[in-house]
């Protein structure tokens, strides 16, 4: 199984932190083999053409941007 690559895009406000924690919690609950990274680099964020942070990118695909979903919703996005 390939590792699930999770990226949290955002410059570091409170919402970004919450998304990071919830995403990791969801990944752990699902028992995924994952790696998670917080990305504040503007160039990378723009590369994904994301307009509102925080944003969640799973294996290179933008799953949600501009809001912080619940852990339950994140589990759906990660599986």
């Amino acid at each position, binding site marked *: 199984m390939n590792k699930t690559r999770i990226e949290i895009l955002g*410059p570091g*406000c409170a919402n970004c932190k919450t998304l990071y924690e919830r995403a990791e919690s969801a990944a752990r609950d699902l028992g995924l083999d994952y790696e998670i990274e917080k990305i504040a680099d503007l160039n990378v964020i723009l590369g994904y*053409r994301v*307009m509102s942070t925080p944003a969640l990118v799973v294996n290179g695909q*933008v799953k949600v941007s501009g*809001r912080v979903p619940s852990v339950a919703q994140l589990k759906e996005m990660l599986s």
Partner: protein
Amino acid sequence: MSDLAASPAIPKPRTVQLARLLPFALVAWIVAYSLLGRISNWLSRDLLHLSPATHLGSAVAFFIYEAPKVLLLLTLVVFGVGIVRSFFTPERTRVILAGKKESAGNVLAAALGIVTPFCSCSAVPLFIGFLTAGIPLGVTFSFLISAPMVNEVALALLFGLFGWKVAALYLGTGLVVAIIAGWIIGRLHLERHVEPWVYKLVSGESDTVEERLTWEDRLRHGLAAVRDIVGKVWPYVLVGIAVGAGIHGWVPENFMASIMGKSVWWSVPLAVVIGVPMYSNAAGIIPVVHALLEKGAALGTVLAFMMAVIALSLPETIILRKVLKPTLIAVFLGVVTIGIIVVGYLFNWLI
């Protein structure tokens, strides 16, 4: 993988049907709100034996009445706005604004600024996203000005503490400042003061999957907004009301009239200049504003102060430095500041 095909679908966990609970919640809210006056009177007068004539009595009674009232209103408004916001995303707003010329674009951008969910931390990606879609600089600024300034927390609290007229006035003038300031910035043709690398970026469609939301999702969105916003903001509201209660109980009438009253012509610019470098969330400052008003400060001065505090935030300005050259930032701050001062004078003159 044939055994997977044969097994029955795993049922989704039973979640609470929010739509069913909604009518009950609304009724409960209405009942609580209507009984507030009587309950708080009973609490302060009969249970605690506080006389409204004393400083302490007056202050505590103020607190007991205002705190639950404001929190109830805040909850309702945040819930409602949370639902409205679920219909809007920055991506959709970008598409709507893309073709529009100035003037009409400014009005639309200011209006959309209110309903589009926006966190100041995404000011830069949003700014770039708008510009690369061909949205004029001035129109983008109209959005960036109205989004933080006309926020639902401020409106809910103004409505709760001063009535719908003041809230409507704040909403109206907030929009006007956003529209006109954005339009002026557009007319000044300051595009060369945007960091050059921004315009070199290739525009493209957003990759984000457009989510289809059901009404149940939207209600959940509203509820999440209440949990997040009210959950974060309620201590500030209580402290603000407590300070307001203290001023209400102890500061003599018309004390503020001397510094923030109508007769002093410099009160508006002074209030705005003090307010600009300050940044607070709306919740913390409005109850204080209430008490100031009660003690004789002029409405225009106080509202201008509030706008100055909420509209311009140092963190957001620092973030915008990545895409705006100092001249443009200065013009942005200057135009908004002057707009707010004008609004302050207008209120003092009209009311």
